[in-house]
C-alpha cells in the first residue's frame, strides 16, 4: 500500500500554494510521488495524491497519462533513456540503444532481473551537439560510444 511520507506531503502542500492555480501543482506532485514510489506511478499513487490534493482522481490521471516523464510501469533503479531522434540517429544513437539492451540482457521498456536497470528509447533531449547520448535517471551522459556507455552503466550499482 503506497503512502506518501510526511516530507512528501509537506512538499506537495507547498506546491499547492506556489502557483495561481491549484491544479498547477499536479505536475510537481507527480514528480514527488514518483520519486517516493521507486520511479513510477501506480493507480494507488494517483489515489493518494487525489486525497492529499483534494482533486479528483481523473483530473490527476489525465495529466499523468499525458507526459512521458511519468513512468506508467516499474523501472529499474537506473532508468536508462537513450535518445533515438535525428541528430543522435545520425551518430549511432539507435545502435547504441540496441547494444545497451544486448549487454544488459533486457528488452526495451523492461527491467533487468536484479532490478538494477531498465532501458527505453526516447525522443530529442536537447543534446544534439554531443550525440549520441543517454539519460540515466536525472543525469545526462554525452558523446558516448557503446563501450563508454557500458563502462558508465557497469559503475552504477
Amino acid at each position, binding site marked *: 500500500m503506497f503512502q506518501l511520507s510526511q516530507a512528501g506531503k509537506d512538499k506537495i502542500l507547498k506546491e499547492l500554494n*506556489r*502557483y*495561481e*492555480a*491549484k*491544479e*498547477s*501543482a*499536479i*505536475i*510537481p506532485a*507527480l*514528480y514527488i510521488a514518483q520519486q517516493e514510489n521507486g520511479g513510477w506511478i501506480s493507480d494507488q499513487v494517483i489515489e493518494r495524491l487525489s486525497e492529499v490534493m483534494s482533486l479528483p482522481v481523473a483530473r490527476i490521471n*489525465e*495529466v499523468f497519462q*499525458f*507526459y*512521458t*516523464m*511519468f513512468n506508467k510501469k516499474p523501472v529499474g533503479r537506473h532508468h536508462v533513456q537513450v535518445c*533515438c*531522434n*535525428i*541528430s543522435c*540517429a*545520425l*551518430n549511432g544513437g*539507435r*545502435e547504441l540503444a*540496441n547494444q545497451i539492451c544486448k549487454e544488459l540482457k533486457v528488452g526495451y521498456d523492461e527491467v533487468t532481473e536484479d532490478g538494477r536497470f531498465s532501458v527505453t*528509447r526516447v*525522443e*530529442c*533531449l*536537447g*543534446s*544534439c*551537439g*554531443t*550525440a549520441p547520448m543517454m*539519460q540515466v535517471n*536525472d*543525469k*545526462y551522459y554525452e558523446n558516448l560510444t557503446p563501450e563508454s556507455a557500458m563502462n558508465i552503466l557497469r559503475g552504477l550499482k
Partner: protein
Amino acid sequence: MEMKLLTEHYHKDEFRRLDGYKKFGGYEVLKKALKMQPQQIIDEVKASGLRGRGGAGFPTGTKWGFLPKNNEPRYLLCNADEGEPGTYKDRLMMERAPHQLIEGMIIAGHATCSKKGYIYIRGEYNYIILIVEHALEEAYKAGLLGKNILGSGIDFDLDVYAGAGAYICGEETGMISSLEGKKGQPKLKPPFPAVQGYLRKPTIVNNVETLAAVVPILRDGAPAYKKIGTEKSPGTKLFSLSGNVVRPGNYEVPLGFPMKDLIYKLGGGLRPGRRLKAVIPGGSSAPVITAAEAESATLDYECLAQMGTMLGSGAVIAIDDSQCMVDMLAVLTHFYHHESCGQCTPCREGTGWLNKVVHSIVEGRGRLQDIDLLVKVADNMKGRTICALSDAAALPVLSFVTKFRDEFEFYVREGRSKVKGVSHAQVHH
C-alpha cells in the same frame, strides 16, 4: 565569423554567478530600463526588428504591442521547453548565463507591465532547472526581483516551472495549458495569448534567446542592433549545429551568415571521405534542402523562406552521404506520431498513417503508390488543425519525398536502401 553579442562571456564560469555577471556589466541595462517608460522599451524593441528566436520568427515588439491597454493583470512566460529536434541553444544560454535571461525578463516584465513571470523549462533539463533556481535566489537576495526592484517602485516576481516531457508544450498555448496544470494541449487562436492567455489573462510568451536579446538591444540601442544581420533579419542568432559534422556546437553569428561557412568553417566540415547530402536548416520541422541548395543558402528568415523552408529555431542538421533519407524520415515520422497531442483528427490520425507508411517502406513492404500516398496524407494535414504540429509533421515528409524521391523509389523496388551498407530495419521502434 562568429559575432558574440550574447555569448561573449559564456566561456567564463564566473559569468554564471551574480557577482561574475555584474563584473561584465550585468544588470546595468536593467537600471537604465527601469527609468524608461514601458512604451519606450516596446518602441526600442520594435525598432530593433528583433524577431522571436523560438521558431516562428514573429516580431517581438509587435507581440508585446498586442497587450490590452488597461490595468488588467498580465503574465510574462519564458518558453524554455526546448524540444525541437536538433536544438540545444536555450540549454546553453541558461547553463552559462542564467542572469542574462533573468535581466531580459525583468526588462520585458517592465515593458509589458507584468508583475509575474514564469520560466517554463523542459523537465529533462533537471540540472538547468537547478542552475536557474539558484540564479533566481541570488537575484531575489540582491533586490533585483520582488517588490520595488532597486528602489524603482516596480515589482516583478519570477519563478520556474518544470515540464514533464511533451514536445507540444513548446507551442505557446500548449505551454499555457501545461502551466495551468492540464494536458499540454494547444488552444484555438484567436484569442491570442496577448489578449487571453494564462488563466485567461493577457500573457506574453517569448523564447529564452528572444528575452536575452533584449539586453544588448537596450544597451547598444536599436540602430546599432539593426546594423547587424540583414534588413529583414536584424541581429545575431545562435545556431545549434549537429549531425554529421566534425565540430557540432552552438555558434552565434549575424543573421544572413552563409550556411556553408557554418557547416564547413565553424563546424569543421564533414568527416573524412564524406560528402554533404542534405541539410535540415531550422529544426526537424523545417523542410529539408539538398546539398546544392545549402551551398547558396544564408541563415536568415527571408532566404530560407524563399527556398521553401524556414530558419525555425536555428537548429542546422547536416546529413552526409552515408545516411539513408528514407531511414531518417522514419525517425521523424515516429517522433511526430509520438508527440501529437491527439486533439485534432488530421494530426492524430495523419501522423500515425505517415509513420506506418514510411515504416512499411523501411521494412521492405512498401508499394510504389505508397510514395504518393505519403504526399496525399501530408497535404491533407496542412493548415487544418489548432496548432502547427500537424504542418510540422507534414512538411518534412513532403520535402524528403520530393527532393529524394529516387531513394524512396529504390527502397520500394529493391526492398533495401539505395545507400550502400545501410540496413536500418533493426534499429526502428
